[in-house]
């Protein structure tokens, strides 16, 4: 039984100089067989395992991770959480996640530092204004909080924004989702890992999948760097490497993997107490609890698995940041990094069964998967346990690329991809 984290446990452990904290999760060797195996120990994979164990009573399962948990895109994103998507299917999916976020720290007994500081999306031209107004209406019809702000209201909400109308891309207005915000990304992975582990899920790190064994159209197991694991159900949550895993099963996915970059500044005192995103100039910024500005840049246009992007992408983002926030002109950037994001042609994810029985894919989250972590895990667990999708992720099936029922969130998702 896990010790509960509380103010008392903190006090008790302080007395022994924090040297006797219990391990948050075990480090087991893989068993010969599991009821289900999740490939990929990022936030989405761990959440999937957690909800499989918790809601679907599947405790004999494993998460295999080629590196360490949360070492991929879960630890590389800019931690923004929002649900102000245009289309009904997306609104349902992302708001389902947002609702889980609101109680996640209590549920996991792990402080994921979810902070509903609001997300503001800026409009810089007439088309932006029209699109963002349309999106606020669509959001409100779907029960998602959204307001449209004019230039003065934008300035009032975030005073450091340069709202002068003589800049290259003047701020004409913006939308605000107050329930949106940020969370501590590593804590999400650790919290789900701890929760899943407590219910008996084996989290196996440094275990890379080498091949998927099938007999006919049914999966039989996976060959890994730690040996063969027999299983009837495989849920692949491998983000940028989804196509690589799909290839092992002889499947092709409608994905392209591209580098996406982010950077943080030196830590400073509180200066921006919300998240501001701009689609048109591709710059978004928030401030971490440590005081660093967290800045998201764009993707490169070429396919790459190298986890590094081009310099001009970062430069373009910083140009935009400086024009919108002249106060940042003397800030120094501390770190810059890249992650590999798997982008779908319609910029919406895939949470789906496949043509192979027992093989499920959760991928295609592109540049915006972090916000969906709890909802994605919950719905993917449902899909795996019942061998059919939940109504909230039914639209995000693989077959939509054949039927043409795309969920086109390019641009409409409020951020350029």
């Amino acid at each position, binding site marked *: 039984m896990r010790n509960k984290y509380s103010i008392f446990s903190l006090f008790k452990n302080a007395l022994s100089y924090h040297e006797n904290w219990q391990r948050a999760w075990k480090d087991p060797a893989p068993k010969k067989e599991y009821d289900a195996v999740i490939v990929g120990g990022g936030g989405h994979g761990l959440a999937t395992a957690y909800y499989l164990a918790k809601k679907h009573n599947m405790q004999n399962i494993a998460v295999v991770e080629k590196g360490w948990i949360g070492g991929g895109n879960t630890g590389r994103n800019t931690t923004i959480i929002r649900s102000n998507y245009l289309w009904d299917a997306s609104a349902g999916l992302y708001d389902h996640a947002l609702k889980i976020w609101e109680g996640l720290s209590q549920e996991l007994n792990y402080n994921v530092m979810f902070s509903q500081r609001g997300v503001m999306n800026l409009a810089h031209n007439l088309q932006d204004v029209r699109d963002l107004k349309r999106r606020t209406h669509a959001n409100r019809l779907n029960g998602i909080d959204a307001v449209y702000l004019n230039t003065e209201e934008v300035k009032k909400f975030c005073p450091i924004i340069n709202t002068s109308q003589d800049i290259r891309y003047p701020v004409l207005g913006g939308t605000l989702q107050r329930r949106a915000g940020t969370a501590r990304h590593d804590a999400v992975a650790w919290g789900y890992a701890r929760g899943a582990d407590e219910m008996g899920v084996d989290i196996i790190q440094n275990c890379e999948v080498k091949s998927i064994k099938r007999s006919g159209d049914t999966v039989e197991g996976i060959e890994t760097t730690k040996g063969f694991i027999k299983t009837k159900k495989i849920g692949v949550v491998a983000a940028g*490497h989804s*196509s*690589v895993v799909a*290839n092992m099963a002889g499947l*092709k*996915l*409608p*994905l*392209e*993997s591209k580098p996406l970059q982010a950077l943080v500044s030196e830590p400073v005192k509180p200066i921006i107490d919300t998240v501001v995103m701009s689609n048109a100039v591709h710059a978004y910024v928030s401030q971490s609890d440590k005081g660093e500005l967290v800045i998201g840049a764009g993707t*490169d*246009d*070429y*396919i*790459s*698995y*190298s986890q*590094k992007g*081009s*310099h*001009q992408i970062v430069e373009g983002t910083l140009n935009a940041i400086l024009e919108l926030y002249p106060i940042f002109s003397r800030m120094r950037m501390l770190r810059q990094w890249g992650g590999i994001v*798997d982008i779908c*042609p319609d910029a919406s994810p895939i949470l789906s069964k496949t043509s192979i029985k027992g093989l499920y894919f959760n991928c295609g989250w592109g540049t915006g998967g972090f916000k969906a972590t709890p909802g994605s895990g919950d719905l993917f667990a449902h899909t795996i346990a019942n061998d059919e999708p939940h109504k909230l992720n039914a639209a995000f099936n693989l077959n939509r*690329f*054949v*039927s*043409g029922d795309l969920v086109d969130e390019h641009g409409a998702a409020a951020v350029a991809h």
Partner: protein
Amino acid sequence: MFLINCPYCGERDQQEFKAGGEAHIERPKQPTELSDDEWAEYLFMRKNIKGVQFERWNHAHGCRKWFNMARDTSNDEIKAIYKIGEKPPTQ
């Protein structure tokens, strides 16, 4: 960021180029006879290879010509550059 040796202009900064995705995807000869599955395959499904991949590039801020490239996507190393219409290198 890397340098690309345009077959028409010589070595230039990657910033001048636009990536055009997977190469050698042939446009269906008889589009009217294609099934939905075949359309999906042509339009959307991609190999998205980790390793050496054949892809199209366009010298957008230069000669504006298209050409092909064999590039290792795991480390961005360019293995070969060849013109449109030429067969991909075998090694």
